[in-house]
């Protein structure tokens, strides 16, 4: 391949079906990239036995590495004994076998002769030197050799470190970066070839520093986790639970790599596994995979290892109220000043780990990364921190913090005595990130972001502290929405409400945006600056003025990572909490609720029948009313990590913004004049069970997304692709659909057939009396009411049914109890 021609990736091979290899293969399949997964041939039975086992295991992993379970079967199984010839047709080969130089060398020798003339060969090593690995790769092919380091779990972790060896062709790296960014949706950081590269080097050091100070200050592991999780802007798994999840043996391996390869490092003596952890590893307590590590689960109790006794006790460590108070201070400068000044051991602990991590990053930045931005993104994308270490330092007041670090070095409080590099203390320095770029110590200047063409697809890349950011030009702005454009012919509407809930002001704003787009633009895109897309209807009336703009945290991705598991588990609950109908209910203002439902229906119908194409650009949660917006847009463009669903049933209601109506229409259309039942039953199940897609592709399976809707891998490309879709629809001479006047429905016979199923659930004790009532109402709406089977109705008939039964449900005491309970506790009530 010459450096100029584009890299066409027809097929990828992954060598090694271990935890990482199999999951990387799964993610390639998620991205519609054909993949061959290799593993050693099984000694007995089917030679593909080992790899097939790994593929089967992918279906069981949680959170799922697969966009939809059946995609696992699209991974082509292979073994080194029989199928090496298949490598010739692979444009990229990713090696992900065990971290043993001798094994990798053997494998390289074996596969190299079978690689295609253009094949790029990349190692997913996390610790071995890329140049050393290149040394055991045939010299003639070294220009196509490099490192691509994915993070676990690869579907969800945004970071991929891209590492060149001395001979890697620059053009090939650029093309590979394009593939990783656009096709796989990853955030690429170019790392230097130093041990553990950037993210693991800093992230693992931060964990070692945490270990060190916890032991020094006698803070229990559970308390450490309470302190080093969301309170400091990091994932809930914090420190020791992360170690358990990663595997204590794997953690030890990474630490030993640092011990063996960084003899000159000032922190070298800390690159060691504490005796207690060594003992756990020797006893086979490796963490989550062995169900025992720093933590273990006994019955319903989570227990944590107590260092003093060497025994497990119930995990109940908490951050002290006084410290929590400090950490909740939104002003970083004040927060750090208070931490620094406090004598509370927990405050001292947090200050110490930040201080030593800052110290470490400052000293090593030049050797491990090209600039400070790369280091911060590596930690944010690879370890799920809300902000990178330099961002935190800078926001806390660069000079102030630098002074404290200097003082602590002078008084011997820091882990090592090495002084901060000179650039830290430059008189003019107020940080490392500025308007012109991020600090690069090697060149002593500020480097701007990558100029590769792939990044032109990201009008608003992940935001970094200190960067200026304006989102286009405002067309109009209300309390509910901001409508804007980017100097072209597409109008964009973004919600301002918390979690982008849809209240009266948002409805009015969207209606106004549609009017505006019809008059002055070629199309309208609904796009949010941060996920979620929308958690649904908020029937709580917002106060007329002073509605606050949504807070814009520097990293939504960090948040997304923190939340992905929770989201996958309890999407419905979170959305339901937003359904703030309680106020009106308590005030007995049912008429007001009904008015809002009407407005909701008017808005979704406008999205569908406007004279310009409307495109929903979806990322993150899209629940209830948010899902109905998607269903009524001419096209949805959704990131893979979109969690879409109609969840109203969870709080005793039913979708009344056209969601039921759309499903009824889709079932009738899909039946093509034949039996509607099997199509409608699928949709009934989605609504009645409040099913939420675990990915955009899963949402398509459930029926929320249509065959014509598009899935995007990189959320930072979402807006650009959504605009392109809107423009393409407009260019094709867009006309709104004709209004359906004769929708066949299942009617009373359909209702009773669904009721038969519901009665069995009830008789089996699976659902309550009220569940049964709700399900019967959903069935009634979706079957078009108590009319003859096969009757023809129009959209308004179905919308009226939605509204009528929504109002009947909301008037019941039990639905009101459910709503109230959800608002109070965040948990569903089964009454």
């Amino acid at each position: 391949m010459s450096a100029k021609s584009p890299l066409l990736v027809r097929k990828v091979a992954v060598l090694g079906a271990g935890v990482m290899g199999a999951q990387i293969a799964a993610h390639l399949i998620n991205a519609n990239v054909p993949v061959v997964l290799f593993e050693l041939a099984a000694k007995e039975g089917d030679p593909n036995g080992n790899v097939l086992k790994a593929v089967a295991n992918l279906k069981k992993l949680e959170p799922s590495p697969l966009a939809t379970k059946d995609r696992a079967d699209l991974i082509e199984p292979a073994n080194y004994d029989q199928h090496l010839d298949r490598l010739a047709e692979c444009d990229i080969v990713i090696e992900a076998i065990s971290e043993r130089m001798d094994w990798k060398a053997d494998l390289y020798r074996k596969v190299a002769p079978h690689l295609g003339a253009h094949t790029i060969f990349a190692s997913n090593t996390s610790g071995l030197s890329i140049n050393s690995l290149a040394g055991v790769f045939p010299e003639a092919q070294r220009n196509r050799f490099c490192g691509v380091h994915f993070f676990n779990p690869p579907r969800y972790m945004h970071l991929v470190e891209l590492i060149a060896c001395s001979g890697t062709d620059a053009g090939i790296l650029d093309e590979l970066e394009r593939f990783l960014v656009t096709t796989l949706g990853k955030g690429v950081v170019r790392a230097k070839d130093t041990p553990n590269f950037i993210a693991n080097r800093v992230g693992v050091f931060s964990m070692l520093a945490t270990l060190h100070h916890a032991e020094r200050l006698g803070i229990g592991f559970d308390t450490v986790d309470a302190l080093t999780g969301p309170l400091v802007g990091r994932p809930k798994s914090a420190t020791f639970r992360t170690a358990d999840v990663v595997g204590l043996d794997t953690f030890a391996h990474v630490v030993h790599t640092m011990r063996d390869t960084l003899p000159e490092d000032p922190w070298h003596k800390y690159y060691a596994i504490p005796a207690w952890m060594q003992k756990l590893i020797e006893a086979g307590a490796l963490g989550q995979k062995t169900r025992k590590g720093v933590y273990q689960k006994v019955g319903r109790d989570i227990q944590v290892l107590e260092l003093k006794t060497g025994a497990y006790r119930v995990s109940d460590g908490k951050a002290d109220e006084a410290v929590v108070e400090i950490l909740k201070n939104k002003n970083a400068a004040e927060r750090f000043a208070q931490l620094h000044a406090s004598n509370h051991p927990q405050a001292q602990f947090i200050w110490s780990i930040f201080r030593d991590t800052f110290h470490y990053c400052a000293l090593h930045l030049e050797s491990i990364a090209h600039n400070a931005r790369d280091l911060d993104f590596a930690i944010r994308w690879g370890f799920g921190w809300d902000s990178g270490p330099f961002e935190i330092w800078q926001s806390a007041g660069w000079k102030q913090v630098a002074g404290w670090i200097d003082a602590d070095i002078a008084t011997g409080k820091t882990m090592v005595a090495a002084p901060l590099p000179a650039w830290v203390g430059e008189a003019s320095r107020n940080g490392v990130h500025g308007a012109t770029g991020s600090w690069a110590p090697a060149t002593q200047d500020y480097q701007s972001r990558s100029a590769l063409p792939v990044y032109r697809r990201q009008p608003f890349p992940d935001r970094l502290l200190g960067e200026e950011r304006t989102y286009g030009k405002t067309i109009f702005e209300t309390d509910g929405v901001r409508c804007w454009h980017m100097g072209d012919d597409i109008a964009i509407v973004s919600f301002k409400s918390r979690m982008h809930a849809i209240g009266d002001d948002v409805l009015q704003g969207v209606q106004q945006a549609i009017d505006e787009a019809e008059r002055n633009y070629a199309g309208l895109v609904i796009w949010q600056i941060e996920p979620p897309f929308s958690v649904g209807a908020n029937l709580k009336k917002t106060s007329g003025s002073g509605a606050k703009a949504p807070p814009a945290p520097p990293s939504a991705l960090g948040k997304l990572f923190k939340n992905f598991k929770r989201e996958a588990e309890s999407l419905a609950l979170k959305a339901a909490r937003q359904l703030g109908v309680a106020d009106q209910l308590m005030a007995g203002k049912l008429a007001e609720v009904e008015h809002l439902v009407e407005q909701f229906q008017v808005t979704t119908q406008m999205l569908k029948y406007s004279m310009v194409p409307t495109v929903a650009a979806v990322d993150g949660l899209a629940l209830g009313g948010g899902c109905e917006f998607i269903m009524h847009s001419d096209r949805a463009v959704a990131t893979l990590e979109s969690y879409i669903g109609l969840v109203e049933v969870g709080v005793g209601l039913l979708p009344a913004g056209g969601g039921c109506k759309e499903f009824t229409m889709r079932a009738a259309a899909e039946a093509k004049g034949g039996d509607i039942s099997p199509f409608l039953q699928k949709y009934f199940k989605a609504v009645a069970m409040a099913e939420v897609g675990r990915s955009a592709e899963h949402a398509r399976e459930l029926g929320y997304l249509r065959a014509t809707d598009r899935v995007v891998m990189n959320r930072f490309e979402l807006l650009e692709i959504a605009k392109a879709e809107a423009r393409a629809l407009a260019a094709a001479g867009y006309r709104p659909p004709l209004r359906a006047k004769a929708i066949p429905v299942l009617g009373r016979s359909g209702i009773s057939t669904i009721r038969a199923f519901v009665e069995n659930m009830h008789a089996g004790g699976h659902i309550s009396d009220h569940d049964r009532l709700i399900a019967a109402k959903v069935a009634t709406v979706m079957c078009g009411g108590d009319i003859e089977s096969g009757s023809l109705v129009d959209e308004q008939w179905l919308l009226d049914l939605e509204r009528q039964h929504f109002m009947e449900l909301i008037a019941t005491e039990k639905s009101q109890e459910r709503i109230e309970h959800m608002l109070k506790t965040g948990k569903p009530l089964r009454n």
Partner: protein
Amino acid sequence: MTRQVQDAYIVVATRTAVGKAPRGMYKNTRPDDLLAHVIRSAIAQCPGLDPREIGDVIAGCAMPEGEQGMNVARIGLLLAGLPDTVPGMTINRFCSSGLQAVADAAARIRLGEAEVMIAAGIESMSMVPMGGNKPSFSPAIFEKDENVAIAYGMGITAERVAAQWKINREDQDLFAAESHRRANWATDAGEFRDEISPYAISERLPDLERRQIAVRTRRAEQDEGPRRDTSVEALAKLKPAFAAKGSVTAGNSSQMSDGAAAVVLMSEAAMKRCKLEPLGRFLGYAVAGVAPEVMGIGPVQAIPKVLAQAGLKQEQLDWIELNEAFAAQSLAVMRELGLDPAKVNPLGGAIALGHPLGATGAIRTATLLHGLRRHKKQYGMVTMCIGTGMGAAGLFEAL
């Protein structure tokens, strides 16, 4: 009291091996082909019979639609090569359809309306699911609470029986394990050899590697249902399949299955003409209704009814084929009537051998008649519960 003019004798009773549904050996075998096969096989066992003498072919089927719709009895007999002059009809009383076919065929002979009859049972649960391809329930069912049970799935009714007759989980699992043990023993001992007509399965499958049609042939000669690897411990681990806090599991319920059976009945005169020996004599048949929500208890009403009709006492029964729809209802029926567990399903039951709904009655008639003869017993019964609340029982005497 019967008004019969002559006895009805069973001269042939044969069946296919029973396959698992929906992914078992017959998953690609059409039920009309299976029916044609057992009819052909039955006729082959009556060398002296002129097929034109057959008065009618009555086939039982519980979900007579799709691949087994359009009067599958007539289609099956034509595919079997019987003359155009032989008529056929399909009947349905759910799980007793196959036994009902035997009873109806016998009745025609006993009344002197026919000399030779074929009764059959056919069901492919692989191709036509329980409830049919397009289940549809009347709105009227939900207008009155007492009618709701019409819509209940069979599993829910089994839970109701378990609760009302106090059949605990442990006993159900023990019963299920015993069913498998007996079925495995019987299979190994060759107990089913006389009654099974092996079927040559032929499947046409795409061979994507060689770009051609691959024809896969197999001989189906052994029931697919019995498990060698089951145990009370393994069964105890299964989760309730129907009720959240129930005791009925996939392991102590009957299996979904595919299968067919055909029975040739004759008058004494016809039998002599054809120079055939009887397997047994048909003694009577009764059905009775019970509440739909406890349909599994149906045999409790039907068994005494048929015994009274025939003037037999329960103690005289040597062998009872009680269809194991569920361990819960089987145990409830056995305890309620005091049936001897040793005499009930000595070769295993539907939990192990499978339950191809409408075929079961004819299949177990074959098992009973061959079993009675082989073990030199006299009186036997085939009985089962029936969805929406019925029980059926047929009485036979080995000769």
